[in-house]
């Protein structure tokens, strides 16, 4: 059938050739150029650039805030996905489409509005600031916007899996004397693990590279609230291209590692749950 396609349908060479050329020119060559540029740096200079205290603080904050926000997203994402799949309530369809807003809303808008909501005069800040909760220009602010940008990933990975869970399994568990809580924690949750892990990883990967929203809310104080992408921009603005590239390579390597892990997880869960 597939060989038939190639003999019958037109455009194999044209479409594949165009795809490869476009991908090569726009994506592969620039990425390789970035690594080559970093490789022209003598190793000790590269190491000096990526291991300054300020850079290390930035990686720690980037990875730490991304991990925390992805973990929060797992919890709230599970809650929202469960409610959307299992229960009926008014405005459910509106809520369902609003879940995708972080995919559609420009990150600069998210940053702008989050920074104005959580300052002392803001709608939410006026309740939180008196309690001593500084959710603007702080690390908490970074986590909050990262939760926002990563929110749809967990919900959207979980929903189809929740929909596919067989009613029979739950009924069997109930018939065998399991309480509702036991059914949920021992029967339903285990079948959600692969989707939860994928959702976590996607949300984490998105948070790692995020710039637009964080730059508005964090205050960008070196050592305190400066994430790695902000540091790259700071280096670029000092025209320290080599240093910026070195830090970018570190960030790229982390992102690609996450990407590989996500792919392996997906393949593994397909095999286990096929």
């Amino acid at each position, binding site marked *: 059938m*597939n060989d038939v396609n190639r003999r019958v349908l037109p*455009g194999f060479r044209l479409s594949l050739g165009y795809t490869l050329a476009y991908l090569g020119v*726009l994506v592969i060559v620039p*990425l390789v150029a970035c690594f080559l540029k970093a490789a022209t740096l003598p190793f000790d200079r590269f190491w000096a650039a990526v291991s300054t205290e300020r850079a290390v603080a930035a990686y720690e904050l980037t990875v730490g805030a991304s991990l925390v926000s992805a973990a929060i997203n797992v919890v709230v994402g599970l809650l929202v996905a469960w409610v959307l799949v299992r229960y009926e309530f008014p405005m459910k369809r509106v809520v369902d489409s609003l879940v995708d807003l972080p995919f559609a809303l420009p990150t600069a808008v998210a940053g*702008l509005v989050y920074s*104005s909501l959580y300052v002392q005069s803001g709608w939410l800040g006026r309740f939180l600031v008196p309690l001593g909760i500084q959710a603007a220009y702080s690390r908490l602010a970074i986590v909050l916007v990262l939760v926002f940008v990563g929110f749809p990933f967990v919900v959207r990975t979980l929903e189809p899996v929740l929909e596919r869970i067989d009613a029979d399994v739950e009924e069997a568990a109930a018939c065998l004397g399991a309480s509702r809580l036991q059914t949920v924690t021992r029967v339903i949750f285990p079948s959600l693990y692969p989707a939860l892990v994928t959702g976590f990883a996607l949300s984490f990967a998105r948070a790692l590279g995020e710039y637009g929203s964080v730059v508005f809310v964090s205050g960008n104080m070196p050592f305190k609230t400066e994430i790695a992408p902000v540091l790259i921009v700071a280096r670029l603005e000092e025209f320290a291209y080599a240093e910026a590239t070195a830090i970018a390579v570190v960030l790229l390597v982390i992102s690609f590692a996450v990407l590989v892990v996500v792919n392996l997880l997906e393949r593994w869960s397909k095999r286990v749950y096929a």
Partner: protein
Amino acid sequence: MSTPDHTNSRSDPRWVRITLVAAALGVVGVLIVIPLVDVFVEAFGRGFGAYWRTLTADEDTLAAIRLTMTVAPIAVVTNLVFGIAAAWSISRFRFPGRTLLTALIDLPFSVSPVVAGLIFVLIFGLQGYLGPWLRAHDWRIIFATPGLVLVTTFVTFPFIARELIPVMEAIGAEEEIAAVSLGASGWQLFRRVTLPNIKWGLVYGLILCNARAMGEFGAVYVVSGHITGRTDTMPLRVEKLFQEYNTAGAFAVASLLASLALVTLAVKTALEWKTRRDLAEAARLRSEGEEP
């Protein structure tokens, strides 16, 4: 789901349901609804007239809107052509490296926007590989519109291809093979058979691609150079107004981008409902056909 949800063993106690729904609505409310409402309240807080003046009296804001309206369509159209070519080759043919190619198409999604901007500075910037040559020919890419188009195309690269590939795989090649055997030319095949089949998937990919193209911040931030009135796109204009403590101006531009997001969501939702209805209809026809 064929079995109703209301069998005893599957339904949770009423208080659990109410608590969980309330908690979920709380999460969506705080994370999404309140920020969304706040954008428009801040923008329109001083009345529609003030809002309109804030937008139209500022030449630089108008220039930013025009620039975004130039950059985003170019990026979307180039990615549209690429998306169709990629989906055609990947979904209709088998060749070595096909899985790898599919994975590579997603690559820009895992590159931080800032890094995406940086890699183009490294090539086309003054210190970059092609910088001296471009300068000798008096061509500007970085800190000019071509650079904005390049990075926007890069960050929105996968959107259309990854929507189309599964759609075309699901549809299959039978109709296309039939068309070719009836003597259709390549163009006729595409226009009369393939395009009508994939049009909704195409629209879906297009609107997502466009939303990201208009809203991109990090990548364009790096290559734009922030020349007010010349290389500031709408999101960059939001940031600049914010830095200048012109909150009203920042929120006015932000409200335009937020409206774009709402339109995107509305079209997306409508398409998803339509697809669900079509699938249900197809399933109904099939099951009716099976009955004696």
